[in-house]
């Protein structure tokens, strides 16, 4: 019965963009449907974060540290999270039911 108060599981992805270097890239991650997925971004350039889930999500990235974007995915599948202007894939999340 102790588990009732437990915070729901969530997936946290820490992204740093500095001088054109991106960390991580092409990471392989797993999540559950409807589980919150949080992307924390420290960036020195403006960009766009594209989440290729169904439906797609787009977030504006500014050139500043500590930005947070949260979404959840309700249709299972492989979801690419991409930086639009730098044209790099940060991570592919396997969202399982």
């Amino acid at each position, binding site marked *: 019965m102790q588990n009732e108060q437990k915070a729901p599981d969530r997936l946290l992805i820490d992204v740093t963009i500095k001088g054109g270097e991106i960390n991580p*890239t092409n990471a392989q991650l797993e999540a559950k449907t409807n589980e919150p997925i949080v992307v924390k971004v420290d960036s020195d350039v403006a960009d766009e974060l594209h989440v*290729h889930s169904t439906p797609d999500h787009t977030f504006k990235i500014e050139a500043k540290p500590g930005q947070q974007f949260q979404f959840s995915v309700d249709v299972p599948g492989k979801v690419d999270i991409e930086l639009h202007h730098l044209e790099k894939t940060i991570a592919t999340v396997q969202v399982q039911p």
Partner: protein
Amino acid sequence: MTDGSVVVLAHGLGGSSDLPIPYTYALIGAAWALTFTFGVVALAWRRPRFDPDKPGRALPLWVTTAVDAPATRWVLAAAGLLFAAWVAMAAMFGTADGNPLPGVFYVLMWVGLVASSLAIGPIWRAVSPVRTVYRLLRLARLRDGRGYPRPLGYWPAAFGLFAFVWLELASPDPGSLGAIKLWLWVYIVVTLTGAIVCGDKWFGRADPFEVYSVVASRFSPMRRNPQSGRIEIGNPFNHLPTMPIRPGTVTVLAVLLGSTAFDSFSAMPVWRNFVDRQTESAATATMLRTAGLLVFITVVVVTFWLAARATGGVDKRTRRELPGVMAHSLIPIVLGYVFAHYLSYLIERGQQTVIDLADPLGHGWNLLGLGNAEVNYVLSLHPSVLATIKVCCVVGGHVAGVIAAHDRALKVLPTGYQLTGQLAMMLVMVGYTFTGLYLLFGG
């Protein structure tokens, strides 16, 4: 860029892709494929059974009469032309967001065409808007009577199919409306010019969509009686060897199989990391992906070509003909792999495309009440069902390919070499299927 938001999308459609199939599914599929293959070679029939001349079960005469009626043909052609005009309107005046063009192009024209051709026959001939324009404008009168050069065979179609998969899998931005529109303009100009110069045979041999449609239709149970032309239902294995053998037949099939495999492969982190490390700009990444795509297609061509020729007891001429003679046995493998790969696209993105078509300009139109419909993600929501269907498609296509190849080998290989002469082909087919399952499982 002209279209406002330009996003690098997988297949130019955005959204998520299928989950990888579980490891055990891939393993069970591979075990069945292997067992069936050697079962067929060692234990199956020893005399050829399939013959394109074997009649099927004829459908009532009115079916053939109705299908062949000029009125039916004109209605179908007009429907195709109207649909093309509708999509063209969306392409030219619609917004980038929710535009039906990418869905029509990548889902309906690519996967939908295969499904409908497999179900009822080479449908593209009947609905092709370019053919209709050619007939309406009576462009045949511009011909100078040179005809279609025989050595060209299916090569223009192989090239066109390659151009399609290149746009989808290697080009910098497959989802951009501008790129798709440019591709379609080039397709229309090339197809019409070709038909004016070489006559209407050009459509059947050089139009990539028509050739793809013919390829898929060869495994359809629906066919025409070779003597009477009457529509009948028959064993698809009797229908399969009617795939015309022309220069380029093997390449057409290799483009279809190799590109589908490359599609899976290019999503693997190994490949993506490799491309990221090697390339500085979008242009070099495109070149690298183009090279990867070409390698996959070339591997299919070379392995199939070598395997078909690897038999004893035949003279030089027969050996040269063997790859073409065996080519039809690749069709079920291609079909199985295409459905394994794109079934969820066809069902789910297909629904989205139809919904987008109901409101092509983003003005809130609601044609046939479809504008507000919701997509039913029936396959994605049941990943184990989808994985089972995928494995069944790959293994089913493989088994059908092996059966077709075995039967043809009995017909063309000399006595004494019928068993050994098949071995290389069987191994290559097992190789394709193992690779296919490995790629679906995600490495």
